């Protein structure tokens, strides 16, 4: 019996080693391409890292490219602003939903959620027409970071709303009632009671919405042109421009996926809940 368990544990362990290798293989390959010179790319594929022939040239070329720097900055600004905006608005909305008797609450909640589910391709045309058609003087939303920050609310706000709803619900009502009795305003209650207690939840919300905004491609590619292009569109642009400059392409792709990979450990418990809208808790 003992031996059986042991050998099955060993097998399972080996199985997971193999599975992890399989999962990491494509990413590892991309990393290898990104640190190899062009001459080393072709021929028999090798999965070993040759430290002596390793080069950071591709990264240097990409990072010193002003266009790429701009895309990177845009991505940072858009993702961060959107995450902050969405978390704040959603906290207010979640509080309203949790503590006030709003008419048609359930339908409203459902409607908010549906916004996340719609296929984005369907809305490309109207969004493009809206972004270019709505103008104040010479200014239109097309190719602005503001435009993207607002638009990304369409998928991030429902998510944040849902996530924070659960968190606010879990904060005992007695705490804010007590504050109200002491004469605090709604704003004070939000700031002194709800916000501190919801902080861990807010952090998760912020990180996940940040990643979703960072990863977005389709809207960014249609609704921006030069000034507000993000790194994901840069990646797509890159592949078609350079044709065969695979090393730099791989470097851009590595930089695109790096932030998400870095926060993975922080939020991995919440990813499932995040992606399934909480229908399943991970």
């Amino acid at each position, binding site marked *: 019996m003992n031996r059986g368990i042991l050998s099955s544990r060993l097998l399972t362990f080996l199985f997971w080693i193999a599975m992890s290798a399989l999962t990491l293989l494509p990413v590892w390959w991309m990393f290898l391409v990104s640190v190899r010179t062009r001459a080393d790319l072709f021929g028999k*594929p090798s999965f070993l890292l040759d430290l002596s022939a390793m080069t950071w040239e591709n990264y240097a070329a990409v990072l010193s490219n002003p266009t790429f720097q701009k895309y990177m900055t845009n991505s940072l600004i858009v993702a961060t602003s959107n995450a902050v905006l969405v978390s704040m608005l*959603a906290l207010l909305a979640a509080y309203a939903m949790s503590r006030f008797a709003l008419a048609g609450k359930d339908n*409203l909640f459902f409607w908010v959620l*549906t916004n996340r589910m719609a296929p984005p391709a369907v*809305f*490309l045309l109207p969004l493009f027409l809206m972004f270019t058609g709505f103008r104040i003087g010479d200014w239109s939303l097309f190719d602005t970071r503001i435009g993207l920050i*607002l638009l990304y609310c369409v998928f991030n706000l429902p998510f944040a709303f849902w996530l924070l709803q659960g968190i606010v619900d879990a904060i005992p009502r007695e705490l804010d009632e007590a504050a109200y009795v002491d004469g605090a305003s709604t704003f004070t209650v939000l700031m002194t009671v709800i916000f501190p207690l919801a902080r861990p939840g807010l952090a998760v919300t912020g990180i996940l919405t940040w990643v979703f905004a960072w990863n977005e491609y389709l809207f960014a590619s249609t609704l921006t042109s030069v000034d507000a292009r993000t790194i994901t569109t840069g990646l797509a642009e890159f592949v078609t421009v350079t044709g065969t400059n695979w090393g730099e392409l791989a470097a851009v792709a590595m930089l695109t996926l790096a932030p998400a990979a870095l926060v993975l450990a922080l939020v991995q418990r919440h990813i499932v809940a995040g992606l*399934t809208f909480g229908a399943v808790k991970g």
Partner: protein
Amino acid sequence: MRNTTTGWLLIAPTLFILFITGMVPFLYVLAVGFLDWNTFAANPEPRFAGVDNFRRLVFDAAFLKSLWLTFKFTLFVLASQLIIGFFLAKMLMRNVPLKGLFRTVHTLPLMIAPIAVGATWRLMTVPGLGPIPHWMQQWFDISYVLSRFPDQAFATVVIMDIWHWTPLVTLTLMAGLSNLPEEPLEQARIDGAGEWRIFWDITLPFLKPVLLTTIFIRLMDALRTVDEVWMLTGGGPGAETRFIGLHIWRVVFPKTDYGYGAAMSLITLYLTIVMCWLLYVAMTGMKEKSR
């Protein structure tokens, strides 16, 4: 209960933004769907066209093909991911050293930007550079060229999606499995039921709500897959991996066929909603039964 006006004020910004970014585009696309509007036509002005666009769509071979491909793709990835995901969930629930690490590694693809997933797989499959063409040639004597052979392209897109999204299924099923009540399982074992019997009669019914949710989420995501396929195959070879999202993009932008593209968007939206609604009904029905 406090003054509801305050409540409405708090939720108003959220509702307002979602109205602008979600509802208005929907109404807009609804309106444009009934127009004859191509900005590069002899007459570039929009004109009311009634249901002409929709009538044309029913006979549009390219559109129908794209829909069919999308469904085929969805079916393939869903089936594979459920089977593989279930198996992996079982494996991950065993007591194994470094379990947390394995779980984290397995979760990694979920967080990667889809466009970067496409780039990753492109690097794996480029002839002359990628290892996959090399191995296919070396081991199976198969000439593997994504831009040439439709079946290879389709299969690769499916495999890429499996790589990308199976972890989600694994994790949801794990959540479901860990909530399985011990008692009926033990009882069944005492009664001498086989593994398959236990799976069909106990595990599966308990897992049903989680399973359906998972299917629901994956279905919606699969139906709207664009980024990674765009990056890997560009919809090619020919239009063999041009799923509906990509197809709409091509009609709306390079072709500037606004009215027709809007009608196409509406049909797509409608089909998505119908499918999701059917599943939703199934799900709620299921939940009620299990109560």
